[in-house]
């Protein structure tokens, strides 16, 4: 039956068919279980009983199309149930064949359905009418949008190579857009990573050359988390499954977190440390191993750069590394040696780390010492099966937070749990990114708005400082894409973003690529709706466990239609309204950006089969699956189908299970000598795990506390928080198991469970400031304040307040298009000079739409946008934003305060930013070799060597 409105523009109905549901009752499982999933041989034609009609027997018929969830980066498998006749999507279940998610999903998986059938979806390309932020839009055709944007990109590209910026929030795929940017030849990639994981990456990278851990939880004996992987994070669902598996098999979970997260609650040992003291605790554990000889000496001897360390100790870093009497004495002794043996390093570590006693750790962390001792004993007995993980948490909270990763991996190194079963792998060992049909050359430019000279070692771009850079006059942007990214809302100091987004000189054209309305898109010039999970093509591979797999996200209605023999040229024909997908969009806009090919851009997206037009998705992916994925063509051939058909059929493919860790591989040339055998080694300059970081030393961070795994004094160290004056730490970025940043606001099932973000407060602090549950509290940061409700709980460390960051959505218009009224407050934004305010005009509540559920919204408090009051705090080494804010005052709200009030002084925020710029050590003064960044350091879209020259006119010099 043909619906009178388009797909996802009304309540979907599902076709009733004759016949019986597929019977799985005859399948006998050895343990008496029922079947869990429709078997793949039935996926093209699955009949099942209608749930709503029950107990009446009614049968529906679906074609099941595998795809990948688009909510977080875990890339879990989903199976879409598409009505065979009218192509409405009934639901999303798990894909049992997916090696990572294994058929199971978190709450966001099934809720993907809400995103497809969101009555407030943006269905057509929109162009701004009126001033930026006025909220007036007109619908335009894709053609018009493509031509306009492509023309502006062309103009910019003719003038310069740093005028286009692609600013990505959620990547959700592995190589596609990066390749397209390379095709443009510009340095355009900006990300969100430095509000996400940059600090932890920096710490891991300094050790090993890979920037994320892939813990083998399932086989671990001890799991040590500075994260909340049983509820969020990369890669929540697949990780949570395996963490619990390990615990059920007798493994122990230790979590360090000042807040009782769900993860901490399920742990065998919760360590509520004073924020910033984590490295001290970890070094106390390391010290315990070192002093008692309880570490894997063979592993450390073979794989750690101890010889370089000792050479530096008596040589180039002699001053910095010997800063105590005991060390000086040792140094004198070592200087006399002709060569070093490992026993010398053992002594060196003993003398160096001897100061990290349990007592010191307990004092600095303000935690019961017995918990630290228990953790140390567990780690000591882990038998090389220690799986650790810091994803964001403390690493992204503190000045010097990258040391959390550095000191955490130190424990893995000491116990030999690197690449071992139950230990930690490098992410690149458990990831597979296939090669496309051809690759554009590396870029030649360096965009000063992305990786400026002040932070030569920044891990990923200085993204959250874009408005500050623009304010300072570091540059301007011709074409600015925000892609699945809501910078004004999620980044610290959002009013600076408001300033920047409104400035038509500094951001000449702002194109928002987004599936949903958001606060930042409101200030765009174009809003281009891009598809959700089952509405786009992407290829993903994530380090969920010790395996290499690829997952293929595909537009499920398109695939269903093609299965039925319909021809679909562009995915927007199959998606709701004219919602498109980026892969096709990028090809088109790149093609039109270079109309005659003279820029050398369009060739990279040109079809081989049909020259003279952009490559189609079928052709692009067919090439990759036929040529670049070992084992896939054989598997497909065995079924008599093409590799592309195989991926469309199953949605995923395991390239290799339990790959051996690459560093031990024997090589004929290159590599490093390990006990007489030439092995591949790690991705560092020395090919060893760098305990002492020559790079840090060479690039101006020569003090011991930067070159070795060490403790750095956080900006919210006890020395900086005067609790007698009422100062506290604001922990502002914990996440919920049911939401994903600002992209899940259109999920009614998720919002029903979680819709606001009260301020977590320990009863002692609540008593001190005189508030009870639900009372209004004012939290003052260094640049402003916000007013929230108190949530009094024993599950938070005294001295710390916590507030979750994906809640507090808002919109400016009471009626008309925008975020649904059940998910966002209507607010007024005010400005007096440099002071900005936000005031809630109307709380959340039910609203009328074609979905009767929107009238059933029963909640009204949809949270406070506290991020606006966060000062931007770029770590001088990793460039990561240090999320923890110094709460200058947490007190009962004033009589004139209302719930949700926000006030910020952007003069203060610029001054605060300048203070943190002052912590940096620029490449201009500190580069050892005239380059602006160590060549071996990863960065997205590495340009050619020539681009690494220190800029002639560095900003501010």
């Amino acid at each position, binding site marked *: 039956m043909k619906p009178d409105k388009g797909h996802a523009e009304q309540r979907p109905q599902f076709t009733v068919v004759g016949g019986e549901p597929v019977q799985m009752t005859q399948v006998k499982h050895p343990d008496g279980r029922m079947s869990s999933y429709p078997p793949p041989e039935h996926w093209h034609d699955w009949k*099942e009983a209608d749930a709503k009609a029950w107990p009446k027997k009614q049968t529906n018929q679906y074609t099941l199309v595998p795809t990948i969830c688009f909510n977080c980066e875990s890339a879990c498998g989903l199976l879409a149930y598409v009505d065979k006749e009218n192509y409405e999507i009934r639901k999303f279940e798990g894909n049992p064949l997916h090696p990572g998610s294994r058929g*199971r999903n978190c709450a966001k998986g099934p809720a993907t359905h809400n995103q497809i059938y969101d009555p407030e979806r943006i269905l057509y390309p929109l162009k701004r009418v009126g001033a930026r932020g006025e909220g007036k839009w007109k619908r335009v055709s894709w053609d018009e949008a493509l031509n306009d944007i492509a023309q502006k990109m062309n103009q910019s590209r003719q003038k310069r190579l740093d005028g286009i910026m692609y600013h990505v929030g959620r990547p959700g795929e592995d190589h596609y857009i990066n390749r397209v940017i390379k095709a443009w030849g510009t340095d355009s990639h900006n990300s969100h990573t430095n509000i996400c994981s940059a600090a932890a990456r920096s710490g891991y990278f300094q050790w090993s050359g890979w920037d994320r851990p892939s813990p083998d939880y399932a086989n671990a004996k001890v799991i040590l988390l500075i994260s909340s992987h049983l509820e969020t994070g990369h890669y929540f669902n697949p990780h*949570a499954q395996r963490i619990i598996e390990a615990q059920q098999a007798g493994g122990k979970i230790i979590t360090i977190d000042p807040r009782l997260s769900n993860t901490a609650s399920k742990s065998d040992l919760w360590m509520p440390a004073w924020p910033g003291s984590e490295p001290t605790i970890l070094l106390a554990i390391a010290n315990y191993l070192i002093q008692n000889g309880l570490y894997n000496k063979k592993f450390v001897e073979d794989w750690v750069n101890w010889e370089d360390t000792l050479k530096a100790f008596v040589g180039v870093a002699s001053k910095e590394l010997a800063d105590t009497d005991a060390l000086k004495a040792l140094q004198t002794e070592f200087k006399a040696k002709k060569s070093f043996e490992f026993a010398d390093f053992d002594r060196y570590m003993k003398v160096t780390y001897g100061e990290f006693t349990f007592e010191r750790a307990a004092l600095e962390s303000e935690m019961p010492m017995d918990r630290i001792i228990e953790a140390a004993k567990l780690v000591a007995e882990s038998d090389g099966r220690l799986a650790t993980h810091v994803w964001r948490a403390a690493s992204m909270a503190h000045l010097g937070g990258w040391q959390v990763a550095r000191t955490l991996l130190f424990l893995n190194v000491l116990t030999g749990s690197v690449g071992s079963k139950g230990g930690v792998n490098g992410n690149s060992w458990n990831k597979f990114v296939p090669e496309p049909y051809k690759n554009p050359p590396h870029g030649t430019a360096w965009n000063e708005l992305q990786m400026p000279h002040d932070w030569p070692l920044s891990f990923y771009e200085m993204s959250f400082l874009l408005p500050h850079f623009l304010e300072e006059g570091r540059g301007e942007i011709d074409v600015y894409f925000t892609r699945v990214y809501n910078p004004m809302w999620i980044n610290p100091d959002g009013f600076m973003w408001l300033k920047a987004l409104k400035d038509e000189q500094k951001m000449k054209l702002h194109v928002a690529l987004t599936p949903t309305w958001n606060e930042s898109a409101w200030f765009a010039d174009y809003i281009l709706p891009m598809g959700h999970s089952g509405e786009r093509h992407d290829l993903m591979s994530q380090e969920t466990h010790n395996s290499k797999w690829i997952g293929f996200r595909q537009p499920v209605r398109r695939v269903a239609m093609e299965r039925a023999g319909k021809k679909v040229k562009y995915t927007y024909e199959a998606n709701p309204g004219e919602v498109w997908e980026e892969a096709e969009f990028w090809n088109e806009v790149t093609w039109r950006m270079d109309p005659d090919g003279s820029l050398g851009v369009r060739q990279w997206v040109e079809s081989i089969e049909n020259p003279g037009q952009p490559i189609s998705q079928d052709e692009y992916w067919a090439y990759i699956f036929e040529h670049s994925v070992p084992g896939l063509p054989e598997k497909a051939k065995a079924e008599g189908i093409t590799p592309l058909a195989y991926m469309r059929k199953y949605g995923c493919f395991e390239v290799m299970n339990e790959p051996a860790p690459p560093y031990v591989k024997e090589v004929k040339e290159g590599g490093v000598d390990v006990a007489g055998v030439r092995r591949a080694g790690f991705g560092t300059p020395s090919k060893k795990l760098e305990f002492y970081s020559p790079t840090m030393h060479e690039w101006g961070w020569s003090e011991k506390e930067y070159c070795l795994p060490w403790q750095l004094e956080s900006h919210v160290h006890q020395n900086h928080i005067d609790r007698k004056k009422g100062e506290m730490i604001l922990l502002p970025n914990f996440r*919920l198991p049911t939401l994903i940043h600002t992209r899940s606001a259109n999920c009614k*099932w998720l919002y029903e469970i979680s819709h606001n973000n009260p301020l977590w407060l320990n*009863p002692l602090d609540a008593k001190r400031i005189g508030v009870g*549950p639900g009372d209004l509290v004012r939290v003052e940061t260094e640049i402003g304040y916000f007013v929230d409700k108190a*949530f009094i709980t024993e599950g938070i460390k005294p001295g710390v307040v916590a507030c979750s960051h994906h809640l507090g959505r808002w919109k400016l218009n009471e009626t008309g298009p925008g975020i649904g009224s059940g998910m966002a407050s209507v607010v007024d934004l005010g400005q007096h000079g440099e002071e900005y305010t936000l005031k809630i005009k109307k709380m959340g509540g039910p609203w009328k739409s074609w979905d009767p559920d929107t009238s059933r919204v029963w909640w009204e408090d949809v949270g406070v946008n506290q991020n606006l009051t966060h000062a931007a705090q770029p770590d001088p080494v990793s460039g990561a934003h240090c999320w923890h804010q110094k709460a200058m005052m947490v007190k009962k709200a004033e009589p004139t305060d209302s719930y949700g009030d926000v006030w910020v002084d952007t003069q203060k925020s610029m001054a605060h930013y300048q203070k943190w710029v002052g912590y940096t050590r620029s490449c201009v003064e500190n580069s050892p070799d005239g380059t602006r960044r160590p060549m071996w350091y990863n960065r997205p879209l590495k340009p050619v060597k020539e681009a690494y020259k220190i800029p002639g006119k560095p900003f501010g010099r």
Partner: protein
Amino acid sequence: MNYGFLINNSKCIGCHACSTACKSENQVPLGVFRTWVKYTEVGRYPDVRRNFQVNRCNHCMNPPCVEICPVAAMTQRDDGIVGYNADLCIGCKSCMQACPYNSIYIDPETNTAQKCHFCAHRVDNGIEPACVVVCPQHAIVAGDLDDPASEISREISKHNVTVRKPEQGTAPKCFYVDGHQAALTPTVTEGHSKSFLWGDIPSEEMKQAEPSCEPLLYMGDGEHMVQTRANVGHKVPWHWQVPAYLVTKGIASGTFMLMAMAFIYHLADLGGPTKVAVGLITMGFLALTGVFLILDLERPERFIRVMLRPQFKSWLVRGAYIINAFAGLVALWWGAELAVLFGMIDQVPVGLTHVTMYLGFPLALAASVYTAFLFGQAEGRDFWQSPLLPFHFLTQSVMAGGAALLIANLFVPLDPDFLGLASHALAIGLVTNLMMIFLGEFGMSHPTDTARSAAHKITHGEYKVHFWGGAIVVGGLLPIGLMIVGLAPVAALAALAGLYFYEHAFVMAPQKVPNS
């Protein structure tokens, strides 16, 4: 074959995947849940834990919802699954009173009672329920308890398992490994949830709840040591229509019983006008009773099914038959009395009068007290399951009947002896009623925590004004005083008003006690 659930809390991470998978599979509207996750927090920093308890229908071996359902919309299948039927349900919500677990809700689209049905539409075809399939930890196991090889049988035998409220006699088949008492017993955290960790408190009842005066679980003196941190709301099923029906039914049955007693025991002469008046009161208030009952249904157009598609174990059905038999008999007799009054016949046939009086009396008695047995089937409201209740309803009927007659006397002079009987009935009824309230309902200690909590809400909490002001003063002391000074009709009015307030508190308070 006997299906059940096992939920392993040591694996559960409280992620709510089961909640959304169920919403997705069964297209459950916003505001109601078939399965949900309750978060509780226990302890004092730094020794604190959060517990996750996944709540849903327990598919009881002895399902009270099935017993009470008047139209067999709730049924227990041979395979142990307790199911619903939206095509049969009349929306009386008795099942919601019978269920001690808050498992049932009224679906806003069909206005019928629905709940977890074990994904029977999947299970019948050999596929596991949606919540089982999605769970990242495989913490939910669904299977055949009668099959020793099944996963659920083996798991249940291996672990220490607990169930919710075993004392209710429901034999719930949802077993928890590593259950926490603070989560299993809802009244433990009643009132200890003034804010939830990431959502609004979902119901007025939760917002207004006060902690019990006697703690049910003592784990230390920290104010925030035992808390509910997230839960879902459940709408109160019955409202003013039910206390109203209790009052009108009391009046109807009481008035008739007094007349029948006068007739049988020769306590008064009953003239035509008196009998017509009594008949009018009885029929009128029985009609109102019916109106209130039907008004309370979510599918009022289906009310006749209680008579035509009865499930006889339900006291709602038995009561309906009793009321209809009573009304039918009285209608016949009253018709005859009216015919005499309007001169259409000479006299009412003696046999009819005798049958009406002698058969009507026990019918009226049954009509008066049957609600106690209906309340007795409400396993979800322990407070209503009082053995004193039939006697209390009878007392109230006598009191209400007397009151109605005293008021009727203002319009139609009743036979003097009969009026005297009515006066005595009111007076005795008032005193006996007060005694029952103080010595019975509220004097004696209530056997369970939920009953105690309801009693507390009536005497000290949300309904204390209804109780003390309405039931005791307006409904008891004042009319007694007024009768002493000779203002009987005013006393009668006050007594009836007070009766309504009492029933209102009685009916509403237990529904505000949490069952999950």
